[in-house]
């Protein structure tokens, strides 16, 4: 999806906001290995196309490379291994989600590799369930919960544990 359609969807999401009394939060949803994951929009800076990356020899496969984000050097993070998913090649739908997060006490800008960015969605917090123990292969510490949005099951990621430099 291009940046303009994303903006349009963001507007849609704004209009479709649930009645004010209901507590909700806004998430960016994206695809990895066919599953739909969500991350709070408050930590998202921008979404960019996949650009040239510089591999870092000796780096953990979790953060294998560096990218140039508007003149700043940022690590490129691939969470697939951490989420125990196969790390295949990415196609034309792939994007880099630029996040700004406090990591180990310092504000860090990083690029998150996604197989495709889907949309921005409001999720009513009372619709969020905890992950069933046996329902998934993902390590529980990286998951905040799951929400059912229409036909989609969205997995809400815990950015604090997921992006921690060491597991």
């Amino acid at each position, binding site marked *: 999806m291009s940046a303009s359609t994303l903006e349009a969807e963001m507007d849609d999401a704004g209009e479709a906001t649930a009645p004010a009394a209901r507590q909700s939060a806004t998430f960016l949803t994206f695809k990895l290995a066919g599953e739909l994951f969500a991350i709070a929009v408050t930590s998202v800076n921008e979404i960019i196309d996949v650009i*040239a*990356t*510089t*591999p*870092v*020899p*000796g*780096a*953990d496969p*979790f*953060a294998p490379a*560096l*990218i*140039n984000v508007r*003149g*700043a*050097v*940022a*690590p490129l*993070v691939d969470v697939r291994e951490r989420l125990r998913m196969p790390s295949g090649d990415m196609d034309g739908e792939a994007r880099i989600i630029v996040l700004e997060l406090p*990591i*180990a006490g*310092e504000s*860090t800008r*990083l690029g998150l590799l996604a197989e495709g960015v889907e949309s921005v969605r409001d999720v009513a917090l009372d619709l969020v369930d905890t992950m069933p123990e046996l329902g998934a292969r993902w390590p529980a510490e990286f998951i905040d919960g799951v929400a059912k949005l229409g036909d989609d099951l969205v997995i809400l990621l815990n950015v604090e544990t997921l992006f921690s*430099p060491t597991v």
Partner: protein
Amino acid sequence: MVSHLDVFRQEAAELLDGLEGELMALEVDPADAERVDAVFRTMHTLKGSGGMFGFSALVRFVHGLENAYDMVRDGRAKVTPALIETSLAARDHIQQLLEVSGDSAAEEALEQSDTAQKLAAQITAFTGGENEAPETAQAAASPGPKNETFHIRFTPDPGSLRNGMRPDLLVDELIECGSGTVALVTDAVPDLDTLAPTACHLGWELVLTTDRGREALDAIFVFSEPEEVQIERVDTEQTDAPTTWEVFETAPEAVAAQPSAAPPQSQSKDAPAPPAKPAQKAGSLRVQARRLDDLMDQLGELVIAQSRLNRLSEQIADLSLSSAAEEIERLVTGLRDTTLSIRMLPIELVFGKFRRVVRDLSGELGKSVALETTGGETEVDKNVIDSLTEPLVHIIRNSIDHGIEAPEDREAAGKPATAQLRLSAHQAAGEVLISIRDDGAGLNLPAIRNRAVERGLLSPDDQPSDAELSQMIFRPGFSTAKTVSTVSGRGVGMDAVRRVIEDLRGSVDVVTEAGQGTTVTLRLPLTLAIIDGLMVRVAGSVFVIPLSSVVECVELDAAAARRESGRTVLNIREELVPYVDLSERFGLQGHEAVAHPRVVIVGTESRRIGLVVDDILGQHQTVIKSLSVYHRAIKGFSGATILGDGTVALILDIAAFVKLLSGDVRAAA
């Protein structure tokens, strides 16, 4: 926007740093009139500017010290070791006073603290209560101290206890001044049912015989309101003083804080050194460090933009464009050098602080240590300087506490009783080397070994080299000290040192020789911002080597490489230089053998190594961007930079490579 208050605090902090140095120089040469003047001026400036910003406790405290040095200046007193000791402690107290904001409750609490009271008493004892007022100066001129008897009536304000006033301490101080009688005045104590428990209803009456003079007594009450105190001299012996009891103002300091009541004489006294005038050096300008950082950031962007321009001009290949690009490159290089030089400060700024540390610590531990510093003029980036103090203090503390022996032990070992601690700095190959060398007992390697085995860092069968054992002291929580002293032994020090130095992209090394001493060497990059780099290509990736560590570039003779297979050593002008193939080292995929690989010979002071690369691409002004938490721990890279085409390149950390390779060579041997 920085407030004037912040500016004052910063200036005062600088004054105090300078003061420390002056005081310690005075300790060595007490007759140095220039230094006495400098100390006096510092006190005077502190008092003057402090007053402007409402630091009244500071003003009152500094006033006594100023008097003391005024007396020394006029030849009415001499610099004594006790005065230096008191002044140094007073300096620390002033620092605390500066930290609490003007006139707050914290300031009062600090002012009333036992330390403050004790210092004030010591200073008063030195000045003998010398006052600023001219009539007192005359009194002081009269020969010799003599015993005088005073009748003192002290009735604190009922509300004073709530302000943290401690009448008992004041009375104790009076008693210390001489001999006499103390009577408690209870007339004002009301009936129990009307008694307010938080009010002070008591008074004191003392008859005190002292040789310290009236001003010493005045100084004790320097913090009290004048109406609370009456001091009257009882004429017991023949003097030219008034024979009647005399009531006089007690606190010239308090008066100074209330200009309306200031006696005119004290103004003329102030005239030679006007207050609140910060020391200014001709042709220099005070700039906020924050602005320098911003300037540096912008320069970094400019350098990156300029390398993009260079690349475009190469592609377009237009003569007028390329000449403009070249001119801009030249200008940017000049701007870069100037900006970097603004940030460079002599390392003496850090060294200066250690004279005090060494002096205090050796006194505390009963050791005799002479500190010698060389290379203080070596310039280092301001941010490096700021971060260096703490690690160096740790190292020096360790040296004095653990390394250097007690004087008796030193003599028994045939060494001079006074230990040498050498702090030196110099520049080499784009790095600053700072070494701290003591001639103490050296690291206790057997004890380190035992401790390492105990902690499971070594197995009992391991045979580590001395150098490896020495490095153990940088492990987190490692200490062989049996007891934790106030000085060191908690095992956090050296670990913290290593962390700080590595954060600065430097390294730390320790070399020890039993009975001869220990040398800790810190290697730090000259600057944290922009360097000249050499771009090289390795298996499709571009890396940057700091140009300052490049010695030369040679071609790797393929035939020679084959012939020497199994041995990775080059013979360069009769010197054997080990080399490493970077594509192999980095495990880079898709590497095809290049017909003529190049070897970049890089070196630190003591060692040279070769790095085999596919091609050398040219020079590059390299804006160093630090690596994120994900990559910081990887050895071999000191940061990353952005190239002209917008891609990211890693910067090689040559010192780490040299170390790595030396380790490999040893392991292979």
